[in-house]
């Protein structure tokens, strides 16, 4: 089992961050994300919570031994469930891999909550684990590769989202967005 976590502060109000969430892709810093689809969405008439289920399609080069052993391919799909609760100002996003799910699980939870009037706290945790009783070095190798990929994409995601929020902010203020 590999764990990953990071936290960060975005210099934007919470509502700006959740609006920006839906505009994150396509993104030049996250070219591995090639498709995004909403497969289910509902607004709870009592609580006002918006639940969204999405499937994200990613293309990433996998090491040849992984492709051979696990029959993987460049295409990887992820299921993401997002809850936006405007009353409590909580956003929770849970993601899990659909591809290679019989071999390994990468379970991620992201939270956005206000830390002040103009700042939003972001926390991200992930548990990456090979699922089956594979022989140990293969399981370890797979976990390590998934973890490296995850960390790399997490860093890219953070800078990419910072850019999106800044551009959105400038757009709203009527100033031209700076070149990325």
């Amino acid at each position: 089992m590999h764990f990953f976590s990071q936290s960060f502060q975005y210099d934007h109000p919470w509502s700006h961050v959740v609006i920006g969430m839906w505009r994150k892709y396509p993104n030049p810093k996250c070219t591995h994300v090639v498709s995004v689809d909403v497969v289910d969405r509902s607004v709870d008439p009592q609580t006002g919570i918006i639940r969204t289920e999405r499937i994200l399609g990613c293309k990433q080069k996998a090491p040849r031994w992984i492709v051979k052993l696990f029959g993987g391919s460049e295409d990887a799909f992820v299921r993401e469930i997002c809850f936006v609760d405007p009353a409590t100002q909580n956003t929770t996003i849970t993601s899990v891999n659909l591809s290679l799910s019989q071999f390994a699980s990468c379970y991620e939870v992201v939270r956005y909550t206000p830390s002040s009037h103009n700042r939003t706290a972001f926390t991200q945790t992930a548990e990456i684990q090979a699922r089956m009783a594979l022989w140990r070095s293969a399981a370890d190798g797979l976990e390590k590769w998934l973890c490296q990929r995850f960390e790399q994409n997490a860093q890219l995601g953070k800078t990419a989202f910072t850019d999106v929020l800044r551009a959105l902010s400038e757009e709203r203020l009527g100033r031209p967005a700076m070149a990325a």
Partner: protein
Amino acid sequence: MASSLSPECTPLKTSYDVCFNSWFEGYLEPAVSALQTADRAAYAKANAEEYELKCGKIWQEYKACVHKAIKDNGLEPVLQQAREEHPLATPPSSSEHRKA
């Protein structure tokens, strides 16, 4: 906007995304400041209805297209399994751990 997993669904997806984003932005600020529980419930109900009215039709069209694309790409079994393992009908609590 990002593309859909199936190119033929991308135009429907784009129209739906535009509709949802516009509704969402209008929804968020007042929802955040509706502090009274009674206000909040009434506001939530009115907005859920508004969402259905504005985006309901395009959502049905896009949803039908994307669900077919999911089937055609062979993703239905893994999606179904993922939904059974983690239904996530409500937000996970901070102490909840994923199933092994």
